């Protein structure tokens, strides 16, 4: 009994010591979310008291409470009932994201299937070009994209953000990886049974590459939902701005409202992340291991 007890205590201690850094890192990671939740439940006065050095430039340091002294839903109510501009930008974001994702389904998926399943001369070169484009930062592509969109008279429209997003290379890269994993024998069997290439793609390629497709779409959703550079570069009309451009516009005097808006903005990708987390893990693993 004594030996067992000693082992248990040592084990616990070891576990604590082993988990402490991870727990500390998790706390740091979760900190902003907690900050958002508590901040959105604080009134203007309480927030002003805690954040005075930041908001009003007073001396001292920011303080914080993890439970609001005077909790209020005022910020949430104001956001939901008295902020049409928030919803306007939210749905702008959703329109952009949905447009890009649908476009990628229509264009990126066949492209990835073609690259993965139809070897042709220069196949590797094309794939290499995709990789190259994927690695290029947006700043490098911004000017050419801007000039093309200007010629097409698409600047200052949602298409200026959606079209380049549709032809993003990362989903092709990710889906390519999963499509290459589909056994050739299954495809051959289908062809022998009389299935055309379209049916092969729709009934064999898509189901078997579903994990890659879903993970690509989820990652693209997360990326598009927080997109800032592209709208800033190609959109001038405020009515077209996505939510990511609205949040920084909220003044310091409406800090509580900003917390509430950020919380709602966070909830959408967070729920989607939890919904498709298994696909995401596989997709990230695939892109990391097989890249």
């Amino acid at each position, binding site marked *: 009994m004594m030996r067992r007890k000693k082992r248990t205590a040592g084990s616990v201690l070891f576990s604590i010591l082993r988990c402490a850094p991870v727990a500390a890192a998790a706390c740091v990671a979760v900190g902003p979310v907690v900050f958002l939740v508590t901040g959105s439940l604080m009134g203007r006065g309480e927030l002003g008291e805690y954040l005075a050095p930041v908001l009003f430039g007073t001396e001292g340091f920011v303080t914080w409470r993890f439970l609001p002294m005077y909790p209020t839903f005022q910020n949430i109510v104001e956001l*939901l*009932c008295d902020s049409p501009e928030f919803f*306007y930008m*939210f749905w702008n974001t959703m329109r952009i994201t949905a447009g890009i994702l649908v476009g990628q389904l229509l264009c990126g998926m066949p492209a990835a299937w073609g690259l993965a399943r139809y070897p042709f001369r220069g196949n590797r070169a094309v794939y290499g070009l995709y990789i190259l484009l994927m690695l290029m930062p947006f700043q490098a592509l911004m000017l050419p994209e801007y000039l093309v969109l200007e010629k097409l008279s698409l600047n200052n429209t949602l298409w200026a953000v959606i079209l380049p997003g549709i032809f993003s290379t990362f989903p092709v890269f990710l889906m390519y990886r999963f499509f290459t994993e589909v056994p050739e024998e299954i495809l051959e069997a289908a062809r022998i049974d009389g299935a055309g290439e379209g049916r092969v793609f729709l009934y064999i390629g898509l189901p078997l590459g579903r994990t890659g497709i879903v993970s690509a779409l989820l990652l693209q959703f997360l990326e598009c939902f927080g997109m800032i550079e592209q709208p800033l570069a190609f959109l001038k009309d405020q009515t077209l701005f996505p939510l990511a451009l609205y949040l920084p516009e909220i003044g310091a005097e409406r800090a509580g409202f900003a917390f509430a808006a950020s919380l709602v903005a966070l909830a*959408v990708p967070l729920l989607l992340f939890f*919904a498709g987390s298994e696909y995401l893990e596989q997709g990230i693993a695939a892109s990391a291991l097989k890249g």
Partner: protein
Amino acid sequence: MNRFYAKSFAALLAVLLFFTFVSRAADSFLVTCVTVEKPSAKKIEHIVAADGTVEKNMEFPVLTEAGCVVRTVYVQEGEWVGEGQLLADVLTDRLAEQTEALREEIAVLKLQRDAAEKNARLSEETRDRQLARAKADYERAAAEAERAVKEAEEAKAAAEQAIGAFSAGHADGGAADGQEEALAGLWQAYFEKQKACETAARDGEKNVEAARRALEDAEAGVQEEHTAEISRISIAQKERELAGYEALLAADGKITAPQAGTVTAVYLQTGQNTPDTAAFAMAKADGGVRITADIPAADAAYIDGGDAVEVEKDGKVYEGFTVTGIAQAADGMVHVTVTGEAGPEAFRIGDGARITVRKQSGLYGTTVPRSAVYTEQGKNYVYVIEERETVLGRQFFTRKAEVFVLEKNSEYAALKEGSLGVDERVVATAERYIQAGDRVRLETP
């Protein structure tokens, strides 16, 4: 896919969609709806209107003989009557008695007059006689006094001569005792004469003074006698009164309107005596209509004497009226009198009528609706609309612009040139209180 989170995600989108509509609806409800107008060139028309009352105009009295008993009054105040229309009548038998009594009274007066005339003549003769006697007494006293003085002076002169002659005869010899006594006697006589002379003068003056006073008393003793004259005047008055009674009696006691007009006052009462003042007061038919009204002093600035006035009564508009009087009244009001020609049948005294005076200013280049002008701390300002690009699209916001109001009426205000641009949209009306910087919604007509 985790179904729970997937459903939560869908539910969150649904909630956000719901609140999208809620926030839009709340925003539409909370944003003030305004109407706007651009500044325009206009003349400012001041319309001063007030409810007035038809008043008496060009009144005259209807007289009748006093002291008659009124039998019936046929008219009342405000009634329109034609010329010769019966107003009232009096009891004729009583009137006949009064007429007869008056005649007798006149006869008595005439007798009194004759007696007074005769007495006056007798008094005149007596006075003349007394005066003549006093005058004669005076003259006689004066003559006697003169004669007595003259005689005394002559005696005095003779005594003086005697002394002279005695002195001349005995000038070169010494005076004897007999001579001195003689001279002393002469001197004694002289002094006596001199004293007699003074006495005569004094007595004469006394007598003349007494006669003069008697003459003055005779002249002053004459008393003015007007009894006859008074009687004649009384007779004349009574005869005029009699003539009035006789005329009224001849008219069977009827009192009629001397000319067409409106009865403005009735001073008769059935069974009572007619007064010695007017029996009725009437306004002339051709005297026009007079309307008075009280207007606020602020509006009076826009009214001048002679201004044309529009009069509305019983839904009908009458023109041809003018402002004839403006006077201060109590409580910061101004009393305005309006007269004009109109059918007297339409305007009865005491009727209500609405008067309207319209006056136009010169042409102002910048006018805005009066409702657009706000006043704060003695300064005037308007709210102009600014368009701004926002997240929700092009939206309208208010901006306060200070203006200088030159003139205004109930509808428009004329602003100083340059206060506003010609293309600026000014908030004419707002459904709620607005402030500078407020987001507003333009109401489409």
